[in-house]
């Protein structure tokens, strides 16, 4: 069998980072502070290499084999499905991808939607597929930040965005009119790593799985 030294795992910056580091500590794989990892971006200790990348880049690192494993939000996987194994629901970083409209809007369920609905989102692929599955024509405006602003200035009818507590939506005068899906952090694996380095990769996977509370 083909072997290589360290098992590598890609962690995301942002909201999932602390949960991911906590999981690594609980699983006794590596204890590394956010500061250290944030400064070095790549930390290798006792057979495990941790690399810190942007959330949307985690699938790319894993799919190309630059990382054997990755921790990433399901929302990212919806938007960029790739050629990896999705192994474990890590159960942290829970949030929902929702359709949100201004409080004053008469839009709500599908029966209230106009013939062509205009939506701003950072998730164009997921949003388009969701509306199309419901027979709804949709015009998607892809934005890269401050999506909440778009309906307020009349750019779109509503937004499709992630929300954990709903606070940002409320603060921007938006309410939830539909749920596209629920997201949590997932453990993904490169297809070849599972096959060519089965033992070392599987041992990391089971430690992470145990630390998640799933002892199957």
């Amino acid at each position: 069998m083909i072997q290589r030294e360290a098992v590598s795992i890609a962690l995301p910056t942002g909201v999932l980072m602390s949960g991911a580091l906590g999981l690594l500590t609980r699983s006794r794989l590596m204890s590394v502070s956010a500061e250290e990892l944030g400064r070095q971006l790549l930390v290798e200790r006792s057979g495990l290499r941790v690399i810190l990348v942007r959330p949307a880049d985690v699938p790319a690192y894993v799919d190309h084999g630059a990382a054997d494993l990755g921790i990433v939000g399901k929302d990212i996987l919806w938007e960029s499905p790739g050629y990896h194994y999705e192994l474990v629901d890590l159960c942290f970083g829970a949030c929902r991808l929702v359709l949100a409209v201004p409080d004053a809007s008469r839009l709500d369920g599908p029966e209230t939607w106009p013939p062509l609905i205009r939506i701003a989102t950072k998730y164009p692929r997921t949003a388009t597929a969701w509306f199309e599955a419901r027979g709804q024509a949709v015009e998607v405006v892809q934005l890269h930040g401050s999506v909440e602003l778009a309906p307020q200035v009349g750019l779109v009818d509503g937004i499709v965005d992630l929300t954990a507590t709903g606070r940002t939506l409320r603060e921007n005068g938006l309410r939830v009119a539909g749920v596209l899906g629920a997201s949590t952090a997932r453990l993904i694996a490169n297809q070849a790593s599972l096959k060519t380095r089965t033992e070392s990769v599987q041992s990391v996977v089971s430690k992470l799985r145990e630390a998640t509370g799933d002892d199957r």
Partner: protein
Amino acid sequence: MPGFRDLLPAEAEVLREAQESLLAEMRRWGYRHVITPLVESMDVLDLGLGVDQRRRLYKFTDARGDIVALVGERTVPVARLVAGKLRGAALPLRLCYAGPVVSTDEARFHHRRETYQVGAELIGASGAVADAEVIALAARCMEATGIRRYQIDVGHAEFFHGIMDAVQLPDDVKGGVRAALAARDFVTLESLLEGTPLKSAEHELLLRFPALRGGPEILEAAGGLVRNRRSEAALSELGRVRELLIAHGIGDVVILDLGAIRDFDYYTGVTFEGYGPDFGRPVAQGGRYDGLLARFGRPAPATGFVVQLDLVSEMLARAPRPPALPRLDAAVAWRGAGLGTALRLGSTLRLFGMRAVVDTEPRSQTEAKAWWRAVGAANLVHCRGEGDVAWSSDGQRTRNLPPEQVAARIAGGGE
């Protein structure tokens, strides 16, 4: 154009050499080379390809208004050939092919839309001996390109079909299970199966799917878990194939992979994938597809594989010791009456199998040395007149020798 690129000399040469090595190995096993067109009629491709594969094709209409497509793989064209122009040829047929394929889906080939494939098909032979032949050929093909460390994962489509037959689940859940497995999404798979009240050994097997791999012990372990004829038959066939692969001399690179997730609608029996070191994707893949030929009107069992040629050359380039690129053996410069000598010397060197380039314009000794360095040849031969030749070699002083001696010494490997 995104997804398409040029291959410059160094890359093109590695790719070409790998292609030649693969085809040569296939010929050594009695596989005959066929060349099928880059374009196929959609009528043909519709017969052989699944919905997703058809969607990824570059389609256009030809001058007569027929819809045609650029091929995305060559197994279907080969099947058309075997059922058509080769209808009279006795089975089994051993055929191989090489060429580019294109896909509109960038993600499929990692942002490449045009890739190079070399493949072999054994058509008209069923059973473990034929399966093992094709797997052993795939293994020797990987070696022939210069890949030193590799493994071949061998699985069986019927093992999965048997489980799906036996497992007690409503049809819509089964559909979900297939979709989740196709997407390699074990989180969804788990929640689907957890939501169903019925539990069985097959149920448990589905959850443990990706971990069902290893040596011969895995067959026994799985045999203790399945309770259906299809899966049991698959396991015993895998055991037989494994024995034959040991006889082929490649037992130590074979890993049994019951959890292999492949296109289960297409493959009907033994499947396999070849992996190289530290490379995120399989470089060779194939298996048994007994249903395809019947769609072209000549029912026949078949098995085969393709090698992803660009992945092979990428892997070789990344290896600790990349393949030595064939170097130009001799740069032949000349001035004045030396041209005739230069041309004759060039011919002689090429007769010896050397790579020699003869300059297109006269040069002085200094100019010739600059040109020599620019073309990067191992030797410089400067023909200064009829029979007057100066020979310089890497790390050697320049010497005057008769032209025929220079040619003999270069061909003989220097000193």
